């Protein structure tokens, strides 16, 4: 496996000009609650259904990002967006009223890195002046699509993760002010043979290891060259597994590694088992917290690697396994 090395794209002209995050109540009560642009207390966000609420999250986060960059929808050239729902419901219904040229993406929980690297590619190539990357997830809409009804008394296993109700939006242009997107590596689908629906971290850890390893090889870097290596939502189990895989190569990433899924909630106080997940999880942590730190120069060079479990409930019921994917985006302050 893994004959093809893939490529790492290098960008000289891609800047994250503005970014914003909107989250739900539980995320607002988490350790980073005060960092987000808005905390929506009502689980249905004032709408009738969870799907509409999720669409509302995307609409809001992009609005905040446009406001910060003093842009309006007429001045936006393109948007890449995605979420976890069938037919990318959160994205298409959330962004339809803006009339911005739209491309929907699906990469499960890796979608924010995927959108960001697509946006950087389009801007760097000069096809567009600006391009937005938006993703979302919602605990309730994801739960009923992928698992059980919300009030069903099933027990979550210790390895299960909690889908974050959150959305993040970033606008990329060529304005040459920090944070800069310097490079990106597209992930390969890694099927490690994991079949447990309640252990997504394990399904994704192999993909994270592979993408980060390839990225560092192409860039000629080591973990020490980065202030942080940030993964999307490996959770506790996935993070431990990734450390093991790196250890086999004699590489240590523990000291540099942060996982958004392990950060967004307080696992001692909030009953979220192995941590957070969902496309909104790392999007909101990046747009609410990490990108601010890069802009202020407190983080100089980070490797953001969002991980996704490309899980199909149908395939799992047919006895199939859960492939994982991870995309890496290198972001710097200079």
């Amino acid at each position, binding site marked *: 496996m893994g004959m093809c090395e893939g490529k790492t794209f290098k960008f000289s002209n891609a800047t994250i000009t503005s970014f914003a995050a909107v989250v739900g109540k539980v995320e607002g009560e988490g350790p980073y609650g005060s960092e987000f642009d808005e905390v929506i207390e009502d689980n249905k966000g004032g709408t009738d259904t969870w799907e509409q609420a999720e669409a509302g999250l995307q609409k809001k986060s992009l609005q905040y990002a446009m406001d910060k960059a003093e842009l309006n929808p007429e001045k936006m050239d393109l948007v890449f967006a995605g979420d976890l729902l069938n037919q990318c419901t959160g994205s298409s219904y959330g962004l339809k009223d803006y009339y911005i040229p739209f491309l929907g993406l699906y990469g499960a929980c890796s979608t924010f890195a995927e959108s960001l690297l697509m946006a950087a590619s389009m801007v760097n190539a000069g096809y567009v002046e600006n391009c937005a990357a938006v993703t979302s997830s919602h605990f309730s809409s994801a739960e009923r699509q992928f698992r059980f009804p919300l009030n069903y008394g*099933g027990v979550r296993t210790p390895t299960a993760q909690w889908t974050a109700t959150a959305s993040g939006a970033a606008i990329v242009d060529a304005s040459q002010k920090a944070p800069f997107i310097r490079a990106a590596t597209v992930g390969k689908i890694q099927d490690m043979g994991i079949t447990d629906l309640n252990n997504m971290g394990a399904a994704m850890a192999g993909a994270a290891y592979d993408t980060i390893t390839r990225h560092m090889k192409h860039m000629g870097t080591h973990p020490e060259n980065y202030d942080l290596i940030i993964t999307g939502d490996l959770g506790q189990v996935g993070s431990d*597994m990734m450390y093991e895989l790196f250890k086999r190569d004699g590489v240590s990433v523990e000291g540099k590694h942060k996982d958004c899924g392990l950060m967004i909630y307080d696992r001692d106080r909030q009953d979220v088992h192995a941590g957070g997940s969902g496309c909104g999880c790392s999007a909101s942590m990046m747009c609410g917290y990490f990108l601010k730190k890069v802009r202020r120069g407190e983080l100089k060079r980070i490797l953001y690697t969002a991980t996704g479990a490309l899980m199909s409930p149908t395939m799992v019921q047919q006895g199939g396994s859960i492939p994982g994917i991870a995309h890496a985006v290198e972001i710097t302050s200079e």
Partner: protein
Amino acid sequence: MNISNQEYGELAKKLSPPSAMYKTIPLAFVIGGGICTLGELLLNVYQMLGLDMEKSGMLTSMTLIFLSALFTGLKLYDRIAQHAGAGTLVPITGFANSVVSPALDFKSEGFVLGLGAKMFVIAGPVIVYGISASIIYGVIYYCMTTFGG
């Protein structure tokens, strides 16, 4: 990748924390036992009110089903179930919860294609195989009593 899928699976098993059975099993016993004790209590009360055994039993089931549906609607049943596990799943209350919870969730897609169609999405298999088993049992019972002498 620097690892085979088999080795990776073993690693996943090793690094995944198991359920805390020293805690989950006693909790399931206590809460499940509590529900059954409540059932016994109801049965005795109905009999004390002058109902015969059969009617008291029926009323006990109905009361427990009602309470389960009510607690599901109040969003309390799944919170208790997080601690109770099989203690709330096995009694008749678990069955009621499995019917009411999808009904609540899928109400947003309408009463026919949403609530009506999805109501038995979890309980359906139990009903299908419960009825199938009872038919097979009935046939065996019939054969035994007719031909078995």
